[in-house]
């Protein structure tokens, strides 16, 4: 698992949209004045007639996307997560309620966003989206899986939310894996402990696993890129094998991946757990990596939680 090379999820998004747009003539993209930064503008350059920038108006962006979808279009729309959150009403009552083909991209998720500060660091989006019926919720970790999941979302029916990141992330996949919505990926097999992570925390989980290996603890590392519908089978199978689970996410520990895993295990196979994530607090300005250390979103913290759990 080479971690030296990194790649931008936003560039992966732009490439995936252009590729899909070439195949799907009924696909359109709607943006809200963040299209250059998110690279959705790449689609706009290639297919200007199918690209609409509505300005800084997120509610209108979702409403227009719904209207396009109600007329038979497959719609990708999005902006930074914190801005998108002011359109939760439209997302709930229009996109999800009517089961529309609107794929919503939330960029700049999590505290790892960095210098823009707490106002721009969304730590509640996965929880909110997960609670909306019909919504598929995705949080890919690297460039390849982002492209794969965007493509599948575009090819499947109904609403989806895809959270991507501001920063480039280590490339975790070789490029020949069969990444599927609803199917968690076991990146490393192990027997003493399971680490389930998503987004930027997957590479931290892999680092923690090698630190644990030095202590003689064998960890299974799972990339749970789909939070809903969650891969119950893979999670329970791994928990039965290892008997201890640590979750890791750049998101509030309330309602996100950790909660989703806890729901699965508490009912399917009660297992000792620890959750690494944001402890119900807002972030602040700083460099992404500095902030991740300060808020415990790092391999060292996963390692510590794992040691405590395994020793219990």
């Amino acid at each position, binding site marked *: 698992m080479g971690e030296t090379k990194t790649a931008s999820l936003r560039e992966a998004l732009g490439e995936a949209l252009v590729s899909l747009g070439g195949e799907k003539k009924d696909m*359109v993209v709607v943006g809200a004045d963040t299209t250059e930064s998110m690279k959705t503008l790449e689609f706009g350059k290639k297919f200007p*007639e*199918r690209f*609409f920038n*509505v*300005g800084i*108006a997120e*509610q*209108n962006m*979702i*409403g*227009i*996307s*719904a*209207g*396009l*979808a*109600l*007329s*038979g*279009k497959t719609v990708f729309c999005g902006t930074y997560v914190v801005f998108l959150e002011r359109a939760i*009403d*439209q997302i709930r*009552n*229009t996109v999800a*309620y*009517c*089961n529309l083909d609107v794929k919503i991209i939330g960029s700049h998720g999590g505290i790892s966003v960095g210098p823009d500060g707490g106002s721009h660091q969304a730590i509640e989006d996965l929880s909110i989206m997960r609670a909306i019926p019909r919504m598929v919720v995705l949080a890919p970790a690297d460039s390849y899986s982002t492209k794969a999941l965007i493509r599948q979302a575009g090819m499947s029916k109904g609403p989806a939310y895809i959270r991507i990141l501001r920063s480039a992330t280590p490339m975790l996949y070789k490029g020949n894996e069969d990444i599927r919505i609803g199917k968690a990926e076991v990146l490393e097999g192990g027997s003493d402990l399971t680490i389930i992570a998503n987004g930027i925390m997957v590479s931290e989980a892999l680092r923690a696993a090698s630190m644990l290996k030095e202590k003689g603890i064998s960890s299974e590392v799972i990339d749970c890129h789909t939070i809903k519908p969650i891969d119950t089978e893979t999670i329970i199978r791994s928990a039965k094998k290892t008997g201890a689970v640590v979750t890791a996410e750049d998101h509030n520990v309330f309602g996100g991946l950790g909660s989703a895993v806890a729901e699965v295990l508490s009912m399917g196979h009660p297992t000792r757990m620890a959750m690494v994530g944001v402890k119900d607090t807002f972030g602040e300005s700083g460099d992404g990596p500095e902030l991740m250390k300060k808020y415990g979103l790092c391999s060292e913290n996963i390692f510590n939680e794992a040691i405590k759990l395994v020793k219990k």
Partner: protein
Amino acid sequence: MQGTDFTISGRAADLRDLRIIAADLRKDILETLGKSNSGHPGGSLSTVEILTSLYFYKMRHNPKDPKWAERDRFLLSKGHAAPALYCVLAKCGYFPKEELGTLRKLNSRLQGHPDPNKLPGVEIPGGPEGIGLSEGIGMALAARLDKRKHVVYVLMGDGEQDEGEVWEAAMAAVKFKLENLVAIIDKNGVQQEGKTMDIMPTDSLAEKWRAFNWEVIEVDGHDLQMVMNALDEATGKGKPVVVIAKTIKGKGVDFMEGNPEYHGKVPNKELLEKAIKQVEYKGN
């Protein structure tokens, strides 16, 4: 009127026929609300001439083929007027009239606020205010992409103009030069908690829309001929058009007219009987 070929637009109707339809609709609305004993009479009654003009005069639509791609779209953005929409759809033949009695009841297709996945003829969901014009923009853009000639009509309330999203959409429709989009405002002057002048004044509505660079047509929303003329003039202007229809909340029933109490309350049995008598067609 049932069985008319709406696809060539229901222009067979003369003014007298349309007045009879409008009176029938008011009666249907009151009877439907009487059965559900829950819902919004005031803002339903104020829309009657607007809906009559659209469904029985202006729009090209086909109740036998509700998803016909070339149909004109009617978007009820003020979703609480669902009883009015359901009554007009039933009268056109989108579903059996008997089903009106199931409004707001368990397992009914007639949800308290419209659900397009449940009932044929419903284009958008209702509920929160202020979303319909955005959806109308999306549909008008899709029509342009698909090189189709149909028109998208969006009916809003004047209380709904409080919502910020309306003005986001007002800007966008002009940016995209949507001449296949017509907004209609049912300006009945009353919202849930009182008169719009007191809750959030919308007295300079026409000036606001003109300032956003829309073409504005002002009409008496209960004068069928005026509403029909406005709809005839509302397309092909190179920009979107808004018809501001001055109406009376609870129109046709003396104790409901302009009375905020009947925004979301159904009159008791005795008053309902009195109301139904008042809205019957009197031959004028």
